[in-house]
């Protein structure tokens, strides 16, 4: 029997439609249907008459981690222009990107728990995420789609209390992560629903081009912040958490989940180090070029977003607008490996699997 899951299903995270071939309750085959949220990002980027006008559109790719999306694009264009960015800007960018990573993981974990019937952790996560969004709102003026990173700098300076607010937040989040671990990670019902479910072996993950927490959940120590450092990530000390199969097999849903939880702690470490060494003075807009005309050529720049490797491939033809912008979206790749890991699972487990790969449909469809 074939049934449709989605496009409006409470647990498919956006408008994703899955066609499931079933044998009783066991899934024989999964066919993801995408495109419900297609907004022509790549075509729009070509149409814009300025490189900087593409930045607000990158926000709308992965709207859960908009800062990281901007970071990737901005870095790509800066490399094309061979632009040197002020020290202070780099620190602010890293702090914001890591805050955004925490916010995104909180949402991912919260909704993952919600899908499996745990409502309380969801509220805990959202309370904390709200604090991050408040920091972002005071900094950039927007709560979800910031358009805060400009090519060569930031559009304006951070608010005066930025350092204090962020330091305060890092202090309050640690106990919450502990609480979250008690509530969800070691919860027997949660473990029963996620351990040994949707196992993604290391080899399959590498073959499919998985990245981010999905790849690390399978036990591969791969993080672009360490393996191919961009911005100033090489100055910070942090670990790469990987899945170890503590409650089941390596690469199951629980492993992918716990990698996210542990990554939040690592992000906090990065934020604290960055806050300590961040310069207080400096103009954040001084390196913003008036005219952006990169040399003829092409470039691929990749960054680590909460979901994995986000790459921007940009071709320039010397004009003011990019000739081509291609986005390599991690969610799209991870959706592709859904059929491989959902074979033989039950329909109820499908919910856990989709939740554990934490896709954002805005990025899948672009």
């Amino acid at each position: 029997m074939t049934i449709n899951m989605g496009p409006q299903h409470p647990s498919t995270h956006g408008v994703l439609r899955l066609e499931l071939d079933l044998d009783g309750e066991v899934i024989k085959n999964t066919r993801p249907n995408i495109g419900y949220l297609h907004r022509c990002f790549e075509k729009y980027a070509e149409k814009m008459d300025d490189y900087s006008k593409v930045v607000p559109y990158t926000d709308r790719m992965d709207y859960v981690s908009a800062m990281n999306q901007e970071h990737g694009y901005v870095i790509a264009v800066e490399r094309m222009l061979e632009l040197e960015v002020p020290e202070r800007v780099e620190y602010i960018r890293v702090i914001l990107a890591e805050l955004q990573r925490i916010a995104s993981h909180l949402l991912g974990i919260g909704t993952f728990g919600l899908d499996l019937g745990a409502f309380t952790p969801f509220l805990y996560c959202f309370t904390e995420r709200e604090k991050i969004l408040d920091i972002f709102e005071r900094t950039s003026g927007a709560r979800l789609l910031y358009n805060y990173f400009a090519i060569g700098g930031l559009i304006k300076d951070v608010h005066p209390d930025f350092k204090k607010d962020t330091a305060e937040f890092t202090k309050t989040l640690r106990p919450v992560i502990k609480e979250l671990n008690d509530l969800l990670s070691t919860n027997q019902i949660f473990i029963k629903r996620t351990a040994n479910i949707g196992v993604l072996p290391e080899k399959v993950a590498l073959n499919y081009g998985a990245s981010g927490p999905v790849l690390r959940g399978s036990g591969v120590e791969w993080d672009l912040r360490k393996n191919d450092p961009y911005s100033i990530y090489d100055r910070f000390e942090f670990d790469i958490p990987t899945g170890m199969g503590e409650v089941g097999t390596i690469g199951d849903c629980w492993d992918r989940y716990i990698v996210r939880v542990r990554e939040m702690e690592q992000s906090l470490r990065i934020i604290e180090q960055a806050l300590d060494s961040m310069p207080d003075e400096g103009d954040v807009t001084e390196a913003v070029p008036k005219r952006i005309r990169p040399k003829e050529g092409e470039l691929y720049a990749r960054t680590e977003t909460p979901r994995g490797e986000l790459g921007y491939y940009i071709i320039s033809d010397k004009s003011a607008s990019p000739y081509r912008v291609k986005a390599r979206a991690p969610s799209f790749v991870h959706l592709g490996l859904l059929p491989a890991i959902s074979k033989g699972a039950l329909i109820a487990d499908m919910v856990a699997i989709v939740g554990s790969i934490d896709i954002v449909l805005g990025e899948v469809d672009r």
Partner: protein
Amino acid sequence: MGVTIRHFFGPSVTLQYPKERMELPKGARAKLYVNIDDCIGCNLCARACPVNCIDIETVKATDDVDLGKTSTGNPKRFWLTRFNIDMAKCMYCDMCVHPCPTNCIYMVPEYEYSDVDRSNLVFHFSNLTPDMVAEVKEKAEEEAEQKKREREEMKRKKAEARKKKEEEKKKQASTKKNDKSDDDKPSTPGKKDS
């Protein structure tokens, strides 16, 4: 149960929305506002907009009127006959706010302006009445016409002067009858007018 009872007596964490409101931080992106008295009609905001939601039409002020200066000291040279912002199109990216030389376009913390009719979301900021717009346009056209005529007149005069000079040169050349002289310059450089 103890937790529940404790929360009864603690401070409230929610706001009774329409009666109470959260205060937006400085620079929050809500609704665009234009201080039209400070606008110099430079069009930079409209050009910075990725979605083209700002529609500006300017008419050059005639020589006999002085529009004064903005509060930042920039001279105003244009009548702003149209300054519309379509908030239905706006994506709140803040990109129009930063290039403004007089800081006259900015976001104001007003977020309750939803409407049933989309055309009501086009906000008009020009303070000229339709009659004034027509008058200003007519005046500007007249002046432009006059200036055009003057320019043409100037051009004609210049051309005549040049012709005269050339003729004189030719005359001189023919009277001198010298082959080595540089008579291959038909007109003097730098006199071309555009």
